[in-house]
């Protein structure tokens, strides 16, 4: 199903948003790489949910937010977005940077969201290992480091198969700059977040790839311990991009967890 495009103005920032599907609202927050298009898993999940997939301020074709300093700003912004867009009490699914944002949102306002899906979220300081310094490596290097095995990614050709256009290069640069603005120090985590996680009693699904080379899988266990009503599901032979690497399995996990009214 082809989604529609909307620009939703929140606090003076135009948020470019893809909206598609039908059913209860599901807010999807992308990672530091930005929105990767209406990929297969979104198509499947939108059969039962109305997916709202905004590009964060400073990312993609959304407006600038040079005043933002960290992910807590982004989290407050998206709580505002939920109100402006009239999403009621949506489920929130966030990947990596978006997962951290979703977790922060939940700690700020547990009642504003329904169920949480955190996919390989950054945000916690790993008890063992380190979060990969993604700004230290070139985008080309990162492309292979983020997935377990590019050959097994079904949509690799569609997503990465052709050279990017000048507009796409500009967007990729912008995404990287805004990600740096939000996450530089402390790098990709909030030392105070673990103290607030116990507040979040929302049912939460945490998904991790066993072969994640960006965020240590131990962080998944840390989130599971911190969030009182959470479970951790680990996907084998999967890296940091479960929605792209195993779209069918991932979409099934999400649908099973969120429920929703089957269309047929």
């Amino acid at each position, binding site marked *: 199903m082809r989604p529609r495009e909307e620009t939703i103005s929140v606090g003076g920032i135009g948020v470019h948003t893809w909206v598609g599907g039908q059913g209860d609202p599901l807010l999807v927050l992308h990672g530091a790489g930005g929105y990767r298009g209406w990929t297969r898993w979104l198509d499947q999940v939108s059969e039962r949910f109305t997916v709202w997939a905004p590009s964060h301020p400073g990312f993609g074709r959304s407006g600038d937010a040079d005043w933002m300093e960290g992910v807590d700003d982004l989290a407050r912004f998206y709580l505002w977005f939920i109100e402006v867009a009239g999403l009621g009490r949506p489920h929130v699914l966030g990947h990596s940077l978006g997962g951290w944002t979703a977790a922060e949102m939940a700690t700020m306002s547990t009642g504003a969201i329904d169920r949480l899906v955190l996919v390989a979220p950054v945000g916690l300081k790993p008890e063992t290992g380190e979060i990969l310094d993604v*700004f*230290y*490596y*070139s985008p080309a290097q990162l492309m292979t480091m983020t997935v377990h095995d590019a050959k097994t990614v079904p949509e690799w050709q569609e997503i990465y198969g052709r050279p990017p256009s000048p507009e796409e290069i500009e967007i990729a*640069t912008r995404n*990287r*700059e805004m*990600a*740096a*603005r939000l996450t*530089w*120090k402390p*790098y990709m985590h909030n030392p105070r977040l673990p103290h607030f996680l116990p507040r979040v009693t929302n049912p939460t699904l945490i998904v991790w790839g066993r072969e994640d080379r960006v965020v240590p899988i131990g962080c998944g266990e840390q989130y599971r311990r911190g969030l009182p009503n959470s479970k951790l599901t680990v996907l084998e032979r999967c890296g940091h991009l479960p929605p792209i690497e195993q779209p069918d399995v991932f979409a099934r996990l999400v649908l099973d967890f969120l429920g929703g009214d089957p269309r047929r």
Partner: protein
Amino acid sequence: MKLYYFSEMPHHEFPDEEGDKYPSLRLEFPNRFFDREKAAANYQRYLTEYEFADQAGFAGLMINEHHSTPSCVNVGVNMTAAILARTTRRAKILLLGNILPIEDNPVRMAEQLAMADLISGGRVLSGFVRGVGVETWWSNSNPIHNRERFEECHDLILKCWTAPGPFRWEGRHYHFRHVNPWCLPLQKPHPPIWIPGTASPETALWAGRRGYTYVPFLVPFEIARELFDFYRQGAAEVGRTVTPDNLGFLICAVTAETKAKAVEAGRHFVWRMGPTLRAPVDWFAPVGMRSRAGSQFALRARPRSLASMSYEELLAEHFIVAGTPDEVIDRFARVQRELGVGHLLLEAQESRMDHPTTMRSIELMGAKVMPAVASL
């Protein structure tokens, strides 16, 4: 045209094949290759050379600062300034410079520079730089904020020097509730400010508006001229006239009694053009550190990297000057004709160039070259 003596205080005290094993000599070349005994001796040697340059008549002693690299182990430009303030007599002490965006306490910076100026009898030329990306990684300073912090840090330092204390500073990146430095520079209203340039049109404009001395580093003549045009544009905006005293240029230079000796010594400069600049692009230019305009200018400014040029090409393009005093005078005169600068900064020691060679070059520059170029 005035000449300035400069050494990066290199620590080239390891087998090159060890350095070659790493993606760069910066950031990741393990510091187990740092030789403490040799470093202790080298600091003494380098300071002696600076002191001799003062005696030989150099107009200024340029010092700089880098981190996490054997190419430059002068890790505290203000420390070196303090030493030279006490052990030299005549030359200006050109700090080029303090890396403002990575500084967390501009008030202390203002105090330290003031103290060096006082001890030196008002000889400090205070250069401010944005730094290369490596220092951003070293300090874990967000490159997105590099220019904002550079400008705000500069503004606060200037306010420390010129505004009566106490005052309060609540900026975007710096916050101080009680600013009242009890150490102010001897020079009034403050030491002259110098700004280097490599590829940023914004910096040239910014320096031009303020009338700061602007010094492109190791760029082709045509790029330096373009940067000077940006500088003049900035100066024109505020109705300021640009004179040679506002403009400088940095090259590598060594002299000796014979051409053969000088050319042999000059080969040491190739190390700083190649191996010490080798690194993944994101290490020198991390995300957001350069504006889009700056990035595009940088690509044009360096159609060929210095590392890809042979020694002969580096000599031909005036990145390196190596010759007898007469030959060096000719070359410097050419630089002056091409660029119209009033200050020529000489990176005059590098890599494994030995102490006697360095001292002899300093001596000849003072005795033969300086009198000839003084009138240019």
